[in-house]
Protein backbone atom coordinates (compact mmCIF):
# COMPACT_ATOMS: atom_id res chain seq x y z
CA UNK A 1 0.00 0.00 0.00
CA UNK A 2 0.94 3.68 -0.24
CA UNK A 3 -0.01 6.26 2.37
CA UNK A 4 0.66 9.77 3.65
CA UNK A 5 1.40 10.39 7.34
CA UNK A 6 -0.25 13.81 7.63
CA UNK A 7 0.57 14.43 11.31
CA UNK A 8 3.70 13.11 13.04
CA UNK A 9 6.14 14.76 15.42
CA UNK A 10 9.25 13.16 13.99
CA UNK A 11 11.70 15.32 15.99
CA UNK A 12 10.61 13.11 18.92
CA UNK A 13 11.09 9.83 17.05
CA UNK A 14 14.03 7.63 16.15
CA UNK A 15 15.49 6.70 12.77
CA UNK A 16 14.01 3.21 13.29
CA UNK A 17 10.59 4.85 12.94
CA UNK A 18 11.57 6.41 9.62
CA UNK A 19 12.70 2.99 8.37
CA UNK A 20 9.47 1.33 9.53
CA UNK A 21 7.25 4.01 7.97
CA UNK A 22 9.00 3.92 4.59
CA UNK A 23 8.92 0.11 4.63
CA UNK A 24 5.16 0.23 5.29
CA UNK A 25 4.59 2.46 2.24
CA UNK A 26 4.74 6.01 3.59
CA UNK A 27 5.29 8.50 0.75
CA UNK A 28 5.45 11.75 2.74
CA UNK A 29 5.38 12.84 6.38
CA UNK A 30 3.97 16.16 7.64
CA UNK A 31 5.06 17.59 10.99
CA UNK A 32 3.09 20.30 12.79
CA UNK A 33 4.84 22.52 15.33
CA UNK A 34 3.84 21.43 18.84
CA UNK A 35 4.59 21.48 22.55
CA UNK A 36 7.95 19.94 23.43
CA UNK A 37 6.65 18.51 26.73
CA UNK A 38 8.05 21.55 28.55
CA UNK A 39 7.63 25.31 28.12
CA UNK A 40 10.36 27.04 26.12
CA UNK A 41 11.91 29.94 27.99
CA UNK A 42 12.02 32.43 25.13
CA UNK A 43 11.21 33.04 21.47
CA UNK A 44 14.78 31.97 20.70
CA UNK A 45 13.78 28.43 21.62
CA UNK A 46 11.08 28.58 18.94
CA UNK A 47 13.50 30.05 16.42
CA UNK A 48 15.75 27.02 16.91
CA UNK A 49 12.74 24.69 16.71
CA UNK A 50 11.54 26.25 13.43
CA UNK A 51 15.09 25.82 12.04
CA UNK A 52 14.92 22.17 13.08
CA UNK A 53 11.52 21.72 11.36
CA UNK A 54 12.42 23.50 8.13
CA UNK A 55 16.06 22.50 7.72
CA UNK A 56 17.43 19.69 9.86
CA UNK A 57 14.45 17.29 9.99
CA UNK A 58 13.82 17.28 6.19
CA UNK A 59 17.47 16.32 5.75
CA UNK A 60 17.24 13.55 8.36
CA UNK A 61 14.05 12.25 6.74
CA UNK A 62 15.58 12.42 3.25
CA UNK A 63 18.26 9.95 4.33
CA UNK A 64 15.46 7.39 4.43
CA UNK A 65 13.87 8.51 1.17
CA UNK A 66 10.90 10.16 2.86
CA UNK A 67 9.81 13.72 1.91
CA UNK A 68 9.25 15.79 5.07
CA UNK A 69 6.95 18.82 5.33
CA UNK A 70 6.02 21.00 8.31
CA UNK A 71 3.52 23.44 9.76
CA UNK A 72 4.53 26.42 11.93
CA UNK A 73 3.00 28.13 14.99
CA UNK A 74 3.22 28.50 18.74
CA UNK A 75 1.07 25.69 20.10
CA UNK A 76 -1.91 26.42 22.40
CA UNK A 77 -0.20 24.89 25.44
CA UNK A 78 2.30 27.76 25.38
CA UNK A 79 -0.24 30.40 24.38
CA UNK A 80 -1.09 31.62 27.86
CA UNK A 81 1.92 33.97 27.70
CA UNK A 82 0.71 36.55 25.18
CA UNK A 83 4.04 38.42 24.99
CA UNK A 84 5.90 35.22 24.15
CA UNK A 85 3.22 34.27 21.62
CA UNK A 86 3.50 37.65 19.89
CA UNK A 87 7.28 37.29 19.64
CA UNK A 88 6.99 33.78 18.20
CA UNK A 89 4.26 34.71 15.70
CA UNK A 90 6.52 37.55 14.49
CA UNK A 91 9.18 34.95 13.62
CA UNK A 92 6.90 32.89 11.38
CA UNK A 93 6.62 34.99 8.16
CA UNK A 94 10.34 34.57 7.39
CA UNK A 95 10.07 30.80 7.81
CA UNK A 96 7.05 30.65 5.47
CA UNK A 97 9.55 31.21 2.65
CA UNK A 98 10.94 27.71 3.23
CA UNK A 99 9.90 25.33 0.46
CA UNK A 100 8.74 22.59 2.84
CA UNK A 101 6.27 24.66 4.90
CA UNK A 102 2.62 23.69 4.37
CA UNK A 103 0.93 26.38 6.45
CA UNK A 104 0.04 27.47 9.99
CA UNK A 105 -0.41 24.71 12.55
CA UNK A 106 -1.14 23.01 14.77
CA UNK A 107 -2.94 26.01 16.23
CA UNK A 108 -6.09 25.79 18.33
CA UNK A 109 -7.08 25.55 21.97
CA UNK A 110 -5.95 23.41 24.91
CA UNK A 111 -7.89 24.42 28.04
CA UNK A 112 -10.22 26.87 26.24
CA UNK A 113 -8.84 30.01 27.91
CA UNK A 114 -9.16 33.64 26.82
CA UNK A 115 -5.46 33.98 26.03
CA UNK A 116 -5.45 30.75 24.01
CA UNK A 117 -8.34 32.17 21.95
CA UNK A 118 -6.51 35.48 21.54
CA UNK A 119 -3.44 33.67 20.16
CA UNK A 120 -5.62 31.46 17.94
CA UNK A 121 -7.17 34.60 16.39
CA UNK A 122 -3.68 35.97 15.68
CA UNK A 123 -2.66 32.74 13.96
CA UNK A 124 -5.81 32.71 11.83
CA UNK A 125 -5.07 36.30 10.84
CA UNK A 126 -1.49 35.33 9.95
CA UNK A 127 -2.79 32.52 7.76
CA UNK A 128 -5.32 34.80 6.05
CA UNK A 129 -2.76 37.52 5.36
CA UNK A 130 -0.29 35.02 3.88
CA UNK A 131 -2.81 32.74 2.11
CA UNK A 132 -1.74 29.70 4.11
CA UNK A 133 -3.44 26.38 4.84
CA UNK A 134 -4.46 25.89 8.48
CA UNK A 135 -4.07 22.80 10.66
CA UNK A 136 -6.01 22.95 13.94
CA UNK A 137 -5.43 21.00 17.16
CA UNK A 138 -8.60 20.43 19.16
CA UNK A 139 -8.39 20.03 22.96
CA UNK A 140 -8.03 16.78 24.82
CA UNK A 141 -10.68 14.65 26.52
CA UNK A 142 -13.20 16.65 28.59
CA UNK A 143 -12.20 19.92 26.88
CA UNK A 144 -12.61 18.68 23.29
CA UNK A 145 -16.32 19.22 22.63
CA UNK A 146 -16.42 22.77 23.97
CA UNK A 147 -13.08 23.69 22.37
CA UNK A 148 -13.99 22.30 18.97
CA UNK A 149 -17.18 24.38 18.87
CA UNK A 150 -15.29 27.53 19.89
CA UNK A 151 -12.64 26.91 17.21
CA UNK A 152 -15.11 26.12 14.43
CA UNK A 153 -17.24 29.16 15.27
CA UNK A 154 -14.20 31.46 15.27
CA UNK A 155 -12.78 30.31 11.93
CA UNK A 156 -16.20 30.15 10.29
CA UNK A 157 -16.76 33.78 11.20
CA UNK A 158 -13.65 34.93 9.29
CA UNK A 159 -14.80 35.47 5.69
CA UNK A 160 -11.18 35.50 4.46
CA UNK A 161 -10.77 31.81 5.32
CA UNK A 162 -11.88 29.10 2.87
CA UNK A 163 -13.11 26.17 5.04
CA UNK A 164 -11.74 23.78 2.41
CA UNK A 165 -8.24 24.97 3.29
CA UNK A 166 -8.63 24.21 7.02
CA UNK A 167 -8.24 20.81 8.66
CA UNK A 168 -9.62 20.39 12.18
CA UNK A 169 -7.68 17.55 13.76
CA UNK A 170 -8.38 14.99 16.50
CA UNK A 171 -12.13 14.82 15.80
CA UNK A 172 -14.16 12.11 17.53
CA UNK A 173 -17.77 10.95 17.38
CA UNK A 174 -19.07 13.93 19.39
CA UNK A 175 -17.26 16.60 17.33
CA UNK A 176 -16.93 15.30 13.77
CA UNK A 177 -20.38 16.37 12.57
CA UNK A 178 -19.89 19.96 13.73
CA UNK A 179 -16.62 20.11 11.79
CA UNK A 180 -17.91 18.46 8.61
CA UNK A 181 -21.14 20.48 8.52
CA UNK A 182 -19.05 23.68 8.56
CA UNK A 183 -17.21 22.57 5.41
CA UNK A 184 -13.83 21.90 7.03
CA UNK A 185 -11.65 18.84 6.63
CA UNK A 186 -11.33 16.57 9.66
CA UNK A 187 -8.47 14.50 11.04
CA UNK A 188 -8.86 11.21 12.93
CA UNK A 189 -5.96 10.57 15.29
CA UNK A 190 -5.15 6.97 16.12
CA UNK A 191 -3.92 6.67 19.72
CA UNK A 192 -3.80 3.60 21.96
CA UNK A 193 -5.45 5.27 24.99
CA UNK A 194 -7.11 8.52 23.94
CA UNK A 195 -8.65 9.91 20.74
CA UNK A 196 -9.54 7.05 18.30
CA UNK A 197 -8.85 3.37 17.84
CA UNK A 198 -8.69 2.06 14.27
CA UNK A 199 -12.11 0.43 14.64
CA UNK A 200 -13.74 3.66 15.85
CA UNK A 201 -12.05 5.72 13.13
CA UNK A 202 -13.51 3.42 10.48
CA UNK A 203 -16.92 3.62 12.20
CA UNK A 204 -16.70 7.41 11.86
CA UNK A 205 -15.92 7.13 8.14
CA UNK A 206 -18.93 4.83 7.72
CA UNK A 207 -21.26 7.09 9.71
CA UNK A 208 -20.13 10.58 8.72
CA UNK A 209 -18.68 10.16 5.20
CA UNK A 210 -15.15 9.76 3.97
CA UNK A 211 -14.76 12.67 1.52
CA UNK A 212 -12.97 15.19 3.75
CA UNK A 213 -11.38 13.01 6.43
CA UNK A 214 -7.88 11.62 6.91
CA UNK A 215 -6.19 9.49 9.55
CA UNK A 216 -2.92 10.23 11.31
CA UNK A 217 -0.75 8.78 14.07
CA UNK A 218 0.24 12.12 15.68
CA UNK A 219 3.18 10.11 17.03
CA UNK A 220 5.32 12.10 19.42
CA UNK A 221 7.18 11.64 22.73
CA UNK A 222 4.05 10.23 24.45
CA UNK A 223 2.09 6.98 24.14
CA UNK A 224 1.64 6.75 20.36
CA UNK A 225 2.30 4.38 17.46
CA UNK A 226 4.13 5.63 14.34
CA UNK A 227 2.63 2.83 12.23
CA UNK A 228 -0.94 3.31 13.40
CA UNK A 229 -2.00 4.61 9.96
CA UNK A 230 -1.04 1.44 8.03
CA UNK A 231 -2.44 -0.59 10.95
CA UNK A 232 -5.79 1.16 10.41
CA UNK A 233 -5.58 0.31 6.70
CA UNK A 234 -5.16 -3.33 7.72
CA UNK A 235 -8.26 -2.99 9.93
CA UNK A 236 -10.19 -1.73 6.89
CA UNK A 237 -9.07 -4.79 4.91
CA UNK A 238 -10.31 -6.99 7.76
CA UNK A 239 -13.71 -5.33 7.44
CA UNK A 240 -13.86 -6.12 3.74
CA UNK A 241 -12.77 -2.86 2.10
CA UNK A 242 -10.97 -3.06 -1.24
CA UNK A 243 -7.60 -1.56 -2.15
CA UNK A 244 -9.17 1.30 -4.11
CA UNK A 245 -11.13 2.57 -1.09
CA UNK A 246 -8.12 2.15 1.20
CA UNK A 247 -5.96 4.11 -1.25
CA UNK A 248 -8.48 6.94 -1.27
CA UNK A 249 -8.58 7.23 2.52
CA UNK A 250 -4.89 6.89 3.24
CA UNK A 251 -3.30 8.46 0.14
CA UNK A 252 -5.61 10.39 -2.17
CA UNK A 253 -7.57 12.23 0.55
CA UNK A 254 -4.49 13.71 2.25
CA UNK A 255 -2.89 14.43 -1.13
CA UNK A 256 -6.03 16.32 -2.20
CA UNK A 257 -5.96 18.56 0.88
CA UNK A 258 -2.20 19.07 1.05
CA UNK A 259 -1.85 19.76 -2.69
CA UNK A 260 -3.66 23.04 -2.08
CA UNK A 261 -0.22 24.18 -0.89
CA UNK A 262 2.15 24.55 -3.85
CA UNK A 263 5.06 23.36 -1.68
CA UNK A 264 3.55 19.87 -1.40
CA UNK A 265 5.00 17.86 -4.24
CA UNK A 266 5.18 14.08 -4.37
CA UNK A 267 8.15 12.67 -6.26
Amino acid sequence: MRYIEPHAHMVSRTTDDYVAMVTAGCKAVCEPAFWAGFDRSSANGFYDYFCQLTDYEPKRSAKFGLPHYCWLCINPKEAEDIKLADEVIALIPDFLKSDTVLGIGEIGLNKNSRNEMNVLEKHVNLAAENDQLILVHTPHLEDKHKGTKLIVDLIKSDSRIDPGKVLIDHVEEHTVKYVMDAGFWGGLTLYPESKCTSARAIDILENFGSERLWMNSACDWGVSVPLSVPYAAQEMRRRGYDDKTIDRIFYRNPVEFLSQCSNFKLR
Partner: protein
Amino acid sequence: MEPKEKQNTVELYFMEARAKLIDIAAFMDRVERDGHTEDFRFKAFKYALKSLESENRVQDVLMSFSDPTDELIPAATIKAACGTWPEESQQ
Protein backbone atom coordinates in the same frame (compact mmCIF):
# COMPACT_ATOMS: atom_id res chain seq x y z
CA MET B 1 -18.92 4.36 3.06
CA GLU B 2 -19.48 0.59 3.05
CA PRO B 3 -17.16 -2.34 2.33
CA LYS B 4 -17.74 -4.36 -0.83
CA GLU B 5 -17.58 -7.55 1.19
CA LYS B 6 -19.34 -6.75 4.45
CA GLN B 7 -18.08 -8.89 7.33
CA ASN B 8 -19.91 -10.13 10.43
CA THR B 9 -18.99 -7.47 12.98
CA VAL B 10 -19.79 -9.74 15.92
CA GLU B 11 -17.41 -12.30 14.47
CA LEU B 12 -14.77 -9.60 14.07
CA TYR B 13 -15.08 -7.76 17.37
CA PHE B 14 -16.84 -9.91 20.01
CA MET B 15 -13.74 -11.34 21.68
CA GLU B 16 -12.05 -7.94 21.80
CA ALA B 17 -15.15 -6.26 23.28
CA ARG B 18 -15.63 -9.13 25.74
CA ALA B 19 -12.07 -8.69 27.00
CA LYS B 20 -12.57 -4.93 27.40
CA LEU B 21 -15.83 -5.46 29.31
CA ILE B 22 -14.14 -7.88 31.71
CA ASP B 23 -11.34 -5.32 32.18
CA ILE B 24 -13.94 -2.68 33.08
CA ALA B 25 -15.51 -5.03 35.62
CA ALA B 26 -12.09 -5.77 37.10
CA PHE B 27 -11.25 -2.04 37.23
CA MET B 28 -14.47 -1.29 39.14
CA ASP B 29 -13.89 -4.18 41.56
CA ARG B 30 -10.30 -2.97 42.11
CA VAL B 31 -11.36 0.62 42.83
CA GLU B 32 -14.04 -0.54 45.29
CA ARG B 33 -11.61 -2.95 46.98
CA ASP B 34 -9.07 -0.15 47.40
CA GLY B 35 -11.66 2.36 48.69
CA HIS B 36 -11.45 4.99 45.95
CA THR B 37 -15.12 5.06 45.00
CA GLU B 38 -15.46 8.76 45.98
CA ASP B 39 -12.89 9.84 43.39
CA PHE B 40 -14.69 12.22 40.99
CA ARG B 41 -13.30 10.30 38.01
CA PHE B 42 -14.77 7.03 39.24
CA LYS B 43 -18.12 8.70 39.88
CA ALA B 44 -18.04 10.10 36.33
CA PHE B 45 -17.12 6.66 35.02
CA LYS B 46 -20.13 5.06 36.71
CA TYR B 47 -22.34 7.87 35.45
CA ALA B 48 -21.09 7.35 31.89
CA LEU B 49 -22.07 3.68 32.04
CA LYS B 50 -25.71 4.78 31.95
CA SER B 51 -25.10 5.98 28.40
CA LEU B 52 -24.70 2.36 27.30
CA GLU B 53 -28.49 2.16 27.46
CA SER B 54 -28.93 5.02 24.97
CA GLU B 55 -29.24 4.86 21.18
CA ASN B 56 -26.10 6.96 20.54
CA ARG B 57 -23.77 5.19 22.96
CA VAL B 58 -20.37 6.51 21.86
CA GLN B 59 -21.47 10.12 21.52
CA ASP B 60 -23.36 10.00 24.81
CA VAL B 61 -20.42 8.48 26.71
CA LEU B 62 -18.07 11.12 25.27
CA MET B 63 -20.53 13.90 26.13
CA SER B 64 -21.00 12.63 29.67
CA PHE B 65 -17.26 13.18 30.25
CA SER B 66 -17.28 16.61 28.53
CA ASP B 67 -17.31 20.14 29.87
CA PRO B 68 -20.90 21.29 29.09
CA THR B 69 -20.20 25.03 29.45
CA ASP B 70 -19.79 27.46 26.54
CA GLU B 71 -17.63 30.25 27.96
CA LEU B 72 -13.86 30.66 27.74
CA ILE B 73 -12.13 30.22 31.11
CA PRO B 74 -10.22 33.25 32.45
CA ALA B 75 -6.81 31.53 32.31
CA ALA B 76 -5.31 28.09 31.84
CA THR B 77 -3.65 27.19 35.14
CA ILE B 78 -2.85 23.62 34.11
CA LYS B 79 -2.04 22.03 30.76
CA ALA B 80 -3.32 18.47 31.17
CA ALA B 81 -6.82 17.03 30.86
CA CYS B 82 -7.92 14.44 33.41
CA GLY B 83 -10.55 12.67 31.29
CA THR B 84 -13.73 14.04 32.80
CA TRP B 85 -15.17 17.42 33.73
CA PRO B 86 -14.94 17.60 37.54
CA GLU B 87 -18.17 19.46 38.23
CA GLU B 88 -20.30 17.20 36.07
CA SER B 89 -19.14 14.15 37.98
CA GLN B 90 -20.54 15.45 41.27
CA GLN B 91 -24.04 14.37 40.22
